[in-house]
């Protein structure tokens, strides 16, 4: 089966800093692929490169049969790849419904034709925000804002959803709800690529896990297997002391 997304030799340099080095991976269609690694390893940078917010210094990104390296973010979104942000960015003075209406109207690349309004309502139902639809987004709690972030992305009818630390800052009950939501999104057939620090969630949700350290891909495989690899343990905990 063709992978949903292919990263080929993705490299990003900021002046003297090598943020991402030669990352090559395939994101399988219809699965949840986790992206883990210590802080500052380059994970969000990779996401920003995929979504078009940043150009790679070298390397290619292939979506289906199209090369999308260097495409602008709105074009990437309309093609079917949508990014949610680590620090949520709702449109504060628009209502919850209007927030989702923005992406429903513009992000679906014609997949929605004239039903943006209906799609927005449906997505709000799906993410459990329909009761808050007429409130300004600034009035939502953090957990609700995270769900709004996902709702906005879903309204673009994406085939690939990039989730950046969607569980960060949530209490256990809220986390549970979020994990459930991610499972439901996968059930709809959306390919999910997610950055996460909450290990239990990543290992439980992911079909495959990529591990990044210092901008390099150091492991790529099923969660249980990756968790036991010495280089992964070393990345998080440091070198084992002798004696």
């Amino acid at each position, binding site marked *: 089966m063709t992978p949903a997304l292919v990263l080929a030799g993705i490299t990003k340099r900021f002046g003297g800093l090598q943020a991402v080095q030669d990352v090559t991976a395939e994101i399988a269609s219809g699965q949840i692929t986790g992206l883990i690694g210590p802080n500052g390893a380059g994970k969000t940078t990779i996401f920003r490169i995929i979504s078009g917010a940043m150009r790679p210094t070298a390397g290619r990104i292939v979506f289906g049969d199209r090369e999308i390296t260097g495409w602008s973010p709105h074009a990437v979104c309309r093609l079917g790849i949508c990014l949610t942000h680590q620090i949520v960015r709702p449109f504060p003075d628009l209502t919850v419904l209007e927030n989702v209406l923005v992406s429903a109207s513009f992000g679906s690349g014609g997949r929605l034709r004239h039903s943006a309004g209906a799609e927005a309502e449906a997505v709000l139902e799906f993410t459990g925000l329909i009761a808050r639809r007429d409130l300004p987004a600034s009035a939502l709690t953090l957990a609700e804002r995270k769900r709004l972030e996902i709702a*906005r992305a879903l309204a673009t009818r994406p085939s690939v959803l990039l989730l950046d630390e969607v569980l960060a800052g949530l209490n256990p009950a809220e986390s549970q709800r979020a994990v459930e939501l991610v499972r439901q999104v996968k059930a709809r057939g959306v390919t999910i690529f997610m950055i996460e620090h909450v290990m239990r969630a990543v290992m439980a949700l992911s079909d495959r896990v990529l591990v990044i350290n210092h901008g390099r891909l150091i492991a790529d495989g099923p969660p249980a297997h990756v968790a036991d690899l010495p280089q992964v343990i070393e990345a998080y905990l440091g070198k084992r002391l002798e004696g």
Partner: protein
Amino acid sequence: MPAARASLPSAFGLVLLLALVPVLAPGNITLLNLGFLTFLYVAQGVAWNILGGFAGYVSFGYAAFYGLGAYTTALLWLAGWPPLLTYPAAGLVAAAFSLIVGGPTLRLTGPYFSIATIGVGEAMRILMLNLDRITGGASGLNLPTAVPSKAWFYLLALLIAAAAFTVAALVRRSPFGLGLQALRMDLEAAEGLGVRTALFKNLAHTLSAFIVGACGGLYATYLQFVHPDTVFSFTQSISLVLITLIGGIGTLWGPVLGAAVFYAVQDYLQTSYPTFHLLVYGVLLILILLFEPRGLVGLAGRLWRPLAAAVSRGQAGAGAGRTG
């Protein structure tokens, strides 16, 4: 937004009322002149607000569009065109220019865009002053004196203001308007959700430039004289900024209120020296930025809500009394 839904019908009613003025007071030239200028600035303020209020790009250089419109009408009129036909042409010339300067400058963010527009506006004024073979330079251009009546100008300006208001109202309700507001609040997030931010900004810019250009053309016929230091002046540019900010930036009725107040105040304050009203506006602007960024519309909203609540409470009380 229920308030927005009510806007077009109430605006239509207001326009009908105002259109009666030349019928009821045909000889009152002062009133007709005041009306003309007010409507002209309502149209421009409403247009400016599409880019400045909805999209959040505050331009201090719209005099460039006004002036280009004025000179387009002037030159075409002198070449024999009937004035009415020159106004769309004036709008088109201004719109074309906006595409040229808008492309690069709209890539700048907030304050930098504003500073760049000051530069563009002033550069245009100086260029026009120096192109004296075309523009008449420092002596300006005298235009034909066969003009329609003041009532004609009044009604045409009212029509243009009404048209501009309708355009702005339609934009606000449309997905385009939603996209503009989204990009104002968070450009990168909007872009990532599929909004073509560069295209939308330029569209808003060009649409408003067209309207302002047409207004410039109308003004040229009214004044029967054009000069770079009037139509391309920085004062002309800042009038639009002031009208919209004081009225309520980003709101639909803001520029309307702002223009009405602007001209009423200016007329009333024609005292010691011609720019005293600018002192008042400077102070108003500071007060508004410190206390009520939504301008007069915001203030009205603050007063309206407790009033409306009190009124409905009073009605409920009366009803209960009657049935009891």
